[in-house]
C-alpha cells in the first residue's frame, strides 16, 4: 500500500507473514553531484553513530539492544544519476518473543529521533563527534585500496566515466574532500537534504498497517519543491579500447574491462540483456567461467556484471599477470561466439532457469522488497512477479545475439605485480 506523506515523500507498506522480523527503510535521494558525495557519506556515518537522544555509541547501542537487538544502519549508494542515503532498522516481531513491548512502533520512533534530532547545536554538528567520524571516514576510504579486487574495479570505473566526474568517484566519497568540510557546512547541507531530497519510506513485515501509517503521518514532512531526479545516466561510447595499468606488490593480477552497453532497466532489450549476461560471464555456466576459468585454467575468477542504470557492462578477472594478452583474447572470443550464435538452446533454457531461481529466491529476503520499491519509484513503473517470469521465458536466441551486438569494449584496467611484464 502506498501513502503520500507530502509531495516527494512516500510511504510504502508491504504486509507479509513470511518473516519473523519487521523492517523499515528510509531513502533520501538526490541527483548525484561531485561536491555533495563525500558530505552525504559523512552524514551517513554521523547519523549511524549519534543523535541528541543517544549522544554516544554506547547509548545508541543500549537503545538497540533494548529493542531485542534491533539492527540499525546507514549507508550510501549510487543508482545511475541518483545518490541515495539510506537508513534502515529491523526489529524482531514481538510475537516470537516473551515480551509485550511494541517493538515496531518503537523502531519508527527511534528513526524519527535519529533523523530530526541529530547531535548538533547552534547550527553545527557536535564537534568531537564530527571530528571522530571525519577521521573514521577518511581511514575507511583509504583502506579500500587494500582490497585489490575493489581497487581495480574502482580504477576501471574512473576510466569508463572520464566524461563525468560525479560518475567517476565512489558513492562513499573521496578522502581528500574531508578536510575541507566543517561541522557547520555539513549541518547546513543536512538541512538542505531534509528539505529537498526525495524521501521513500518502505516498511515490510507483519504489523498493524493503520497504526503504522498514523505514526508516519504525524511527522511534519514538507513538500519537495524540486523536480524528480532522472532515472538513468547514459554512458558515452568511445568506440575505441584504452587500457591503463598499474604495478603494485601483489601476486595475483587483476584485469578489469568496461564495455559500453546501451541497455537500460526494463527497456526493450532488458530481459535479453539479463540472459546475455548470464551467458557471457554472469553464472557458473557462462562462457567466461567455462572457458577462461575451467577450460584454460587461466583465472581464479572471471565474471561479468551489468549496470542497467548507466548503460555499461563490466568484466573482472583475477589472473596470472603473464597471461594478460591471452586472457584478453579469450574474453573477446567469448563475446564474438555469442554474437555469432555459438551457444545451444539447452544452455539458454538453463540460464533462464538460473535467473528465475535467483529471482524467486530473492523473494525470501526481506530487503528485496525495499530495493524493488525504490527502483519502482525511481523508474515510475512496476512489473508483477508473473510478468517478470513471462518476459524472461520469452527471450529468444536471436534477441540474445542482437543484444550482444550492442556491446563495445571501451576501457581496461590492469593491475599487476610487475614481474610478468606483458606488451
Amino acid at each position: 500500500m502506498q501513502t503520500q506523506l507530502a509531495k516527494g515523500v512516500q510511504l510504502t507498506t508491504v504486509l507479509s507473514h513470511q518473516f519473523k522480523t519487521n523492517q523499515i527503510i528510509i531513502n533520501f535521494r538526490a541527483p548525484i553531484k561531485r561536491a555533495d558525495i563525500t558530505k552525504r557519506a559523512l552524514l551517513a556515518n554521523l547519523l549511524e553513530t549519534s543523535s541528541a537522544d543517544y549522544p554516544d555509541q554506547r547509548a545508541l547501542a543500549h537503545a538497540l539492544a533494548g529493542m531485542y537487538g534491533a539492527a540499525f544502519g546507514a549507508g550510501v549508494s549510487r543508482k545511475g544519476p541518483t545518490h541515495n542515503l539510506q537508513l534502515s532498522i529491523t526489529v524482531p516481531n514481538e510475537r516470537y518473543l516473551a515480551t509485550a513491548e511494541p517493538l515496531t512502533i518503537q523502531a519508527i520512533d527511534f528513526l524519527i529521533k535519529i533523523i530530526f534530532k541529530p547531535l548538533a547545536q547552534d547550527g553545527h554538528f557536535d564537534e568531537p563527534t564530527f571530528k571522530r567520524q571525519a577521521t573514521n571516514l577518511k581511514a575507511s576510504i583509504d583502506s579500500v585500496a587494500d582490497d585489490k579486487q575493489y581497487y581495480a574495479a574502482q580504477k576501471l570505473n574512473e576510466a569508463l566515466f572520464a566524461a563525468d566526474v560525479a560518475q567517476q568517484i565512489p558513492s562513499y566519497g573521496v578522502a581528500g574532500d574531508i578536510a575541507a568540510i566543517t561541522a557547520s557546512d555539513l549541518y547546513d547541507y543536512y538541512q538542505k537534504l531534509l528539505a529537498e531530497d526525495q524521501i521513500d519510506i518502505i516498511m515490510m513485515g507483519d504489523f498493524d498497517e493503520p497504526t503504522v501509517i498514523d505514526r508516519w503521518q504525524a511527522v511534519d514532512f514538507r513538500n519537495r519543491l524540486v523536480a524528480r531526479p532522472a532515472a538513468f545516466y547514459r554512458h558515452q561510447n568511445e568506440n575505441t579500447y584504452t587500457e591503463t595499468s598499474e604495478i603494485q606488490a601483489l601476486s595475483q593480477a587483476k584485469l578489469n574491462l568496461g564495455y559500453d552497453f546501451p541497455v537500460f532497466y526494463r527497456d526493450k532489450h532488458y530481459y535479453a540483456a539479463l540472459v546475455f549476461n548470464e551467458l557471457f560471464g554472469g553464472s557458473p555456466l557462462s562462457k567466461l567461467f567455462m572457458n577462461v576459468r575451467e577450460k584454460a585454467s587461466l583465472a581464479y575468477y572471471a565474471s561479468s556484471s551489468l549496470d542497467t542504470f548507466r548503460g555499461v557492462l563490466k568484466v573482472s578477472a583475477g589472473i596470472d599477470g603473464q597471461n594478460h594478452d591471452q586472457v584478453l583474447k579469450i574474453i573477446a572470443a567469448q563475446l564474438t561466439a555469442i554474437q555469432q550464435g555459438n551457444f545451444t538452446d539447452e544452455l539458454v533454457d538453463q540460464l533462464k532457469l538460473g535467473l528465475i531461481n535467483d529471482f524467486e529466491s530473492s523473494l525470501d529476503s526481506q530487503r528485496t522488497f525495499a530495493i524493488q520499491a525504490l527502483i519502482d519509484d525511481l523508474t515510475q513503473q512496476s512489473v508483477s512477479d508473473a510478468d517478470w517470469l513471462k518476459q524472461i521465458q520469452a527471450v529468444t536466441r536471436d534477441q540474445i545475439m542482437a543484444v550482444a551486438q550492442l556491446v563495445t569494449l571501451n576501457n581496461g584496467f590492469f593491475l599487476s605485480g610487475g614481474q610478468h611484464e606483458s606488451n
Partner: protein
Amino acid sequence: MKVTNYEQFNETSYQTKLANGLTVTMLPKAGYHKTYAVFTTNYGSINNTFVPAGETEMRRFPDGIAHFLEHKMFEKADHDAFQTFGKYGASANAFTSFTRTSYLFSATRNLKENLETLLDFVQAPYFTEKTVEKEKGIIGQEIEMYDDDPSWRLYFGMIGNLYPNHPLQSDIAGTTDSIAKITADDLYSAYRTFYHPENMTLFVVGKLDPDEVLSWVTANQAAKQFDAFQPIETKIPATATDGHDIIPYRSIEMPVNRAKSVVGVKGLNPIEPGLPALKYRAGVNVLLEMLFGDTSKNYLRLYDQGIIDDTFGYDFELQNGFDFLTFSGETDDPAAFDAAIIDVLENWQTAVLDQTELLATIKKEMIGRIVFMANSLEAIANRYDQKLFGQATIFDEPGVIDSLSLEDLATIAKQLLTSQAISEYQIRPSGKN
C-alpha cells in the same frame, strides 16, 4: 522420525537416521520460495593424518587435501555437477572448514531432481591424474589470492601463533607446494575414509514437505551400496594445556595503508560436545559482548581514545576439538591496540561482576539475533553441527541464552581468559616505520 516443535517460533524440525547411517534433518519454512540443502561430512583441513579405510597404518596426507577433494568432487567423467544443477535451475556451492566439508544447493524448483543430484555427485567420486593436475592451477590461483589478502594473513598468522604444531595453522587450501603432491589415489583414500554416510549429515530447510523429502532420500540411499562403516582413526597432535607452546608475538610487513593487529586467546580446556558446547558458545558470546560489545563501557572508552575504530571486530571460533578468540582491527599504533585489548581481557572482572542489568540487556539482544537468523535458511542450516551440538537447531538457542547467569560467565572467563593463553600478531605497512 523424531518431530520437535518449537512453539515460540512456530517452527518444527524432523530428524531421522537412515539404515546406511546418514542423519537427515528437515525444517519446513512456510511462505518461502526456496529450499536450501547441505550435505556435510565431518572431514576438514585438520584431518590430514589418518588410517585410510581398508588399511591399518596411520598415514600423513598433504595439507589442503580436504579442500582439494571438495573441488574435484564436482567433476565427473562426462559432465560437471554444476551443469546438472544448472539444468534444474539450482545454484550450488561447497566449502571446506577446519573440521567439515559441505556441499549445498539452493533452488526454488525441481527439488527432487536437485536433491538427487546433490546426493549422487557427492557419492560417486571420479578422480584421474589428469583432472587432478589441472585443478592444481585453479587452486594455486585461489591460494595466491588469499596470500594477498591482509585480513586472511592476519587471521592465519594468529592461528599459527596459537597452534604452532597443529594442522590448524596451515591454510585450509594448503600451499602451492603441498597441493603439488596430491594424487588421485590420495583423494580416493580420503574419500573412502570420510565420506561414509555414517560420517555425514543432510540438512534440508525451506519450501519442503518432510514426508516427501524423506521418501526421496531414503529411496536414493537404499539403491546404493556402502561398505560396513569402519570407525575413523585420525591423529591430531595434542596442544599444551598450559599454553607453553603458544608463540606470544610475531609481526610481518605487507603493502597495506594502515597497520592491522590481532590479539588471540586460545581455549586450553576441552569442550564437551552437545548441550555443554551450546551453552559454552552462548556464554562466550555474551561474555565478549560484555567486555567489548558496543553496549560495553570498554568499547566506548577505547573508541573515544582512538585506540579502536569501526574496523574493530572480534570472533569466537568453536569447532569440534578446539576453540579460540580473536580481536582485530586497523590501527596506527599496534602496540597500544594490543595492550588495551589485553588489559580488558586480564581485568574482565570489572566489566562482568555485578553487571546484572547489562546481562539482561545483552540477553535480549542475543535472543533477538536468533529471531533474525530464523529468517535465513542458510543460517538455520549452517549453524547445525551434529558432531559439536548434537541434534540442536538454532531454535534451541534462546532457551540456552536465557539460562546464563553471571556465575556461569565468571566460570567461563576464569578458565578462558588466562594470560598464558594470549598472543599478538601484527601486519605493518612495508617501507614505513
